[in-house]
């Protein structure tokens, strides 16, 4: 806007000076000959006295110095004349209009004219450089008003222009934002208006893309649901058949049947984890934030894990729980925390504790929830610390069943935490064991959606 108004003002100023130059030309071309003719007529018709009056009136009213020369270059009224005027008169007699500017800021113009008696005269008029256009130049107040008007109009035009240009961009941003937060039906649509420019085409392209994304994601969701169903059907039949077999089995068969049940259970967990991971990776598990009380989840999971761990001579201790509320998916967060804790319990040495803490850290007005899980196991080689969050990654390449787990837990945790805008990291503790930290941004204001089913 500044640019536009500056341009406008500059153009006005230059036209003004061009104006002036134009006016000066007109003065020389039109006004001078008229004046000259008039002066000659007055002299011829009414004599020198009248001429003197005429010339002095020009002086008084217009501040013009006016001299009339005869055809020999002599000033008729015998007044003292500036030397330039005389010189100009002589050259003007050669029928060429001349004008010069004296350093003192006076502009002389000379015009030859012919009187009624046929005699040549030259009228020389000296004016202030500006006064030629005096009549035409507006006083300073008008100039200010003009400038203000220019600024105002420029501002208005700029504003309207800016809005017009950026309106589709704003609509596009709004639609993009809606799409990103999970509203797959977000479109720019009609709000783009009837424009036919590149921005409108961009809006149409966006809508097209959004449609593709929506159909891609819903077909992916359908595929995952189908896979889930198809994978679970044989497992469902398996477990019922297993139950039937147990009814009629000899006691010797019991351990074999137990083993089958165990592996079927592992298969089931694996399918579940894989599907969950696939959903997270594919982006079809989009976040619909509800307020989640992290402290509640952490204490529940810790208590359950402790109960299970005790049967294996290990313990889970919760050392600190700050109150933290986060906007997100309760089940996902629960799984994320569970996987890390379960992992720790699997790897911690017999007779040791897994220590868990939930801290709320505030800085610069932002709060972060930090969940730390520390075990007393063998730790992880430094170079693999980041890799443990990859799917199926196992330290040491052995499909080490004795430590339990399917190798997917941590990658699900990683993905789920990142989906909530957080991050995970693992470090080895100086006195042995591994420390895993989950950090999550606390919602500035957790969306207070009324839960569908009030929990007790």
């Amino acid at each position: 806007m500044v640019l536009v108004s500056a341009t406008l003002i500059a153009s006005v100023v230059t036209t003004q000076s061009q104006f002036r130059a134009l006016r000066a030309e007109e003065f020389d071309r039109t006004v001078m000959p008229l004046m000259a003719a008039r002066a000659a007529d007055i002299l011829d018709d009414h004599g020198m006295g009248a001429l003197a009056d005429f010339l002095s009136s020009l002086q008084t009213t217009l501040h013009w110095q006016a001299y009339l020369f005869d055809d020999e270059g002599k000033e008729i009224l015998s007044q003292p004349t500036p030397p330039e005027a005389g010189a100009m008169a002589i050259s003007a007699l050669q029928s060429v209009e001349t004008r010069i500017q004296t350093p003192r800021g006076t502009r002389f113009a000379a015009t030859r004219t012919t009187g009624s008696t046929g005699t040549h005269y030259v009228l020389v008029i000296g004016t202030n450089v500006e006064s030629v256009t005096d009549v035409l130049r507006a006083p300073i107040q008008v100039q200010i008003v003009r400038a203000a008007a220019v600024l105002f109009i420029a501002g208005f035009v700029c504003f309207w222009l800016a809005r017009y240009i950026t309106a589709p961009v704003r609509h596009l941003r709004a639609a993009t934002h809606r799409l990103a937060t999970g509203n797959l039906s977000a479109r720019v649509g009609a709000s783009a208006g009837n424009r036919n420019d590149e921005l409108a085409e961009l809006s149409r392209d966006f809508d097209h893309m959004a449609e593709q994304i929506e159909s891609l994601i819903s077909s992916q969701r359908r595929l995952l649901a189908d896979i889930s169903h198809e994978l679970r059907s044989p497992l469902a039949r398996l477990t019922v058949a297993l139950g039937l077999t147990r009814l009629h089995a000899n006691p010797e068969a019991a351990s074999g049947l137990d083993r089958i049940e165990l592996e079927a259970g592992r298969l089931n967990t694996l399918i579940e984890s894989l599907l969950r991971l696939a959903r997270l990776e594919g982006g079809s598990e989009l976040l619909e934030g509800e307020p989640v009380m992290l402290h509640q989840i952490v204490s529940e999971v810790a208590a359950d894990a402790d109960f299970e761990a005790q049967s294996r001579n290990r313990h889970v201790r919760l050392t600190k729980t700050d109150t933290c509320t986060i906007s997100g998916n309760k089940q996902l967060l629960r799984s994320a925390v569970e996987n890390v804790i379960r992992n720790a319990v699997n790897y911690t040495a017999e007779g040791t504790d897994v220590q868990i803490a939930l801290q709320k850290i505030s800085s610069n007005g932002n709060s972060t929830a930090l969940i730390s899980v520390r075990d007393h196991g063998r730790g992880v080689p430094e170079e693999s610390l980041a890799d443990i969050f990859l799917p199926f990654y196992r330290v040491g390449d052995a499909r080490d069943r004795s430590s339990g787990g399917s190798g997917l837990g941590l990658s699900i945790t990683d993905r789920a935490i990142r989906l909530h805008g957080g991050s995970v990291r693992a470090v080895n503790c100086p006195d042995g064991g591994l420390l895993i930290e989950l950090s999550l941004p606390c919602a500035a204001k957790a969306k207070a959606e009324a839960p569908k089913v009030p929990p007790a």
Partner: protein
Amino acid sequence: MLPGKTENTADWPATRVLVVDDDVELCELVQQYLRSQGFHVDSVYDGTTGVANALSNSYDMVILDVMLPGVRGFEALRQIRAKSAIPVIMLTARGEDVDRIVGLEIGADDYMPKPFNPRELAARIHAVLRRTNAGTSKESHSPAILCLDDIRLDTRARVVHHKTRDVELTSVEFELLAQFFKSPGQVLTREELVKNALGRDLEPSDRSLDVHISNLRRKLGSFEDDTERIRAIRNVGYVYVVSNSSL
């Protein structure tokens, strides 16, 4: 329950169970198992037939798969519930919370995630039946009629009367209300509510109790002064509020 031992069903005729699932082989296996436990079992493989049979008054219990093609599981459940209070146990995909909650809201009594241990299925069937038959069995020490404020509960007839009208409750909802009425104004923990009303232990992240309570609240409505009948006590359980007038 030890494997191979059937529950003593001598007190009443063999329970007739209807299994509705499109997996024919699974139905066969389930049938085999349940029959060995003393149940009478029939299977159908689509929703429409399932609904028709369920409403035909020939069964005491329905096992319904939510992932039915055609008339989908929930739709079938809705249709059954519209006309009958027959106990329904849903078969759901494991880990799909939303399936469970939706089913319970529509009115299923309980759910069983697939794959499942058939022993557990049998246990849940028994639990549901115990509730339904409780009125007709030898529970003579508990009063037949329980009254509280504007509600009258007949434990024998399994009927609830609110002011001038009868309220249709599923067997789980009835059982929950009966528990509340036996200890009005007392906080009942989630564990004991689930144990008595659903006949099983409380599982972690189990929202089924919450859904049943929510349904119960909806059906009974609030008190005259718009206060909530059943209040949730965070992390503990629920309490049926005794209004001031009856103190």
